[in-house]
């Protein structure tokens, strides 16, 4: 099932004009605040009526302003996860989970059988708090319940509006795996709004990068994240994301990863051998050298050819390197580019000071 969408809406500050297709999997709408992400997701939910819109989920037309079609929010079969949870304060956790089943006259309840209910409760690990009121829950617990409530609405489409933005790093790490599981274990497309590059790197199947109401770039996550033109969307966070396979766990506390024939070392990962992980190489932590580095403490070196050099400020440029593991971005000074004689096609080596599992930026490693 895919989501097709085309929207136009006039705001005071900017005009929103986007159209994209979100395939199965998790599509991240990525952009700075004010780029129109939340407007888009609310239009899909029917909570906001754009001036012009055509929204289709699978074969179902949710809105077409040309034909005068508008399906109200409650008939859209959604699961909307809000940034602020929005649990109903007068209901306990169990009643919040069952709300959709209750108001749809058991229709959703029947579809989301008892089996599915216990599956969701187990998956989110909320079996012990079913009798508690939302006011007594921690932020992470609230968000888990909100996810469960959305899943138990038997949605055709899951919407998530910065579901982790209100949580601290530890709580974020607690919730992220659940989104991975939903992405991998359901057929339901997920539209996920975020401005955090780490979340995008870890979760996204498809990325739609937005800037001031326009689609800047869209496509498979790894391609979009390695594209320097997306960088203005989040300068500080730019960096290539590489998919790698866990190859070996070594006795000295390191895990060896293999990415397209390139070997990378990370501090011990919990994943078992053969598991595929995404690692992130922040562009600001990548050094370039024109000869293979020797006698250097850094373990992770990737050979490649310069594919693109793009100015990002008066003194800095972003160099895209084509390696066997995929594109790698490095942020270096103009002076270095001149001194090393870097130009498109030149072979050089990227030395990654930090390689971290995507969305787990604490595991820096030199």
């Amino acid at each position, binding site marked *: 099932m895919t989501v097709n969408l085309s929207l136009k809406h006039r705001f005071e500050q900017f005009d929103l004009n986007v159209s994209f297709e979100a395939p199965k999997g998790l599509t991240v709408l990525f952009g700075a605040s004010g780029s129109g992400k939340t407007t888009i997701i609310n239009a899909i*939910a*029917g*909570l906001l009526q754009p001036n012009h819109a055509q929204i289709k989920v699978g074969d179902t037309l949710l809105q077409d302003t040309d034909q005068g079609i508008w399906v*109200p*929010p*409650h*008939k*859209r*079969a*959604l*699961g*909307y996860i*809000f*940034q*602020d949870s*929005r649990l*109903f*304060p*007068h209901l306990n956790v169990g009643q919040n989970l069952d*709300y*959709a089943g*209750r*108001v*749809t006259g058991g229709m*959703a309840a029947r579809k989301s059988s008892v089996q599915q209910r216990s599956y969701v409760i187990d998956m989110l690990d909320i079996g012990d708090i079913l009798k508690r009121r*939302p*006011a007594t829950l921690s*932020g992470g617990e609230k968000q888990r319940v909100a996810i469960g*409530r*959305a899943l138990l*609405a038997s949605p055709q489409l899951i*919407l998530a509006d910065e579901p982790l933005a*209100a949580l601290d790093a530890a709580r974020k790490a607690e919730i992220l795996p659940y989104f991975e599981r939903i992405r991998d274990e359901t057929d339901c497309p997920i539209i996920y709004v975020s401005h955090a590059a780490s979340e995008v790197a870890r979760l996204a199947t498809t990325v739609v990068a937005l800037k001031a109401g326009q689609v800047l770039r869209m496509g498979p996550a790894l391609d979009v994240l390695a594209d320097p033109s997306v960088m203005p969307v989040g300068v500080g966070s730019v960096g290539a994301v590489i998919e790698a396979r866990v190859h070996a766990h070594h006795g000295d506390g390191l895990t060896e990863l293999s990415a397209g024939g390139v070997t990378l070392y990370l501090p011990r990962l919990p994943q078992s051998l053969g598991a595929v992980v995404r690692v992130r190489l922040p562009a600001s932590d990548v050094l370039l050298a024109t000869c293979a580095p020797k006698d250097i403490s850094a373990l992770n070196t990737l050979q490649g050819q310069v594919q693109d050099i793009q100015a990002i400020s008066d003194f800095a440029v972003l160099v895209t390197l084509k390696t066997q593991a995929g594109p790698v971005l490095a942020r270096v000074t103009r002076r270095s580019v001149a001194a090393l004689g870097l130009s498109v096609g030149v072979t050089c080596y990227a030395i990654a000071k930090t390689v971290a599992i995507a969305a787990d930026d604490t595991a820096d490693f030199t």
Partner: protein
Amino acid sequence: MMLFGFSPAEWQAILLSLKVALVATCVSLPLGIYIAYVLARRQFWGKQILNALVLLPLVLPPVVTGYVLLIVFGVHGPIGGFLKQFGVVFAFQWTGAVLAAAVMAFPLMVRAIRLSIEAVDPKLEQAASTLGASKIQVFFTITLPLMFPGVFAGAVLAFAKALGEFGATITFVASIPGQTQTIPSAIYALLQVPNQEASALRLVVISVILALAALIVSEVLAKRFERRIAQNDSARSAR
């Protein structure tokens, strides 16, 4: 019969007062909730006029309100005359006392309920609609339960106000023992006659007790409600 030292006439006034106040509150409550909801949530032409009309009995001299009711709902009045064809008569009936009490208590009721609706976060209602709840379901499963303490407080306040209503009632339906003579009009009547001070005093004490009880219940509920809002606010600022 002299239960608790009350004469049958006094009992009649007390029971009638309770009946009138209770019926007035219950009958006007759905309309009060509806008007409060419209005033809190809808934008429409003439909203300020509706708001002023609802509040009018609060500032108008009660005798004027009573006289207007008499003109409009009297047997020769435009509405009273029309309703008379269906056998519904307000003038000089206990139902008229109910109408007068309801009109006088309505502003207090609507204000309390409106405040409670404004405290309900519309984002929760949006969330409910994304989960499949229609507008009516959202109202009955989310909005109404969340504003319930305010509704209850408003109803208790209206009940207390209805119990004490005098000016509009005596103007509209006079003071007929057993028909329209509520506690306040009974006290007034007793004070016109010599040597009835003891009887008047008993009714005064009963009035004070009923009013106090209603106010305390209403305040306690309001406090609890404030705490609930404060809880929501702290949750909101913690985002």
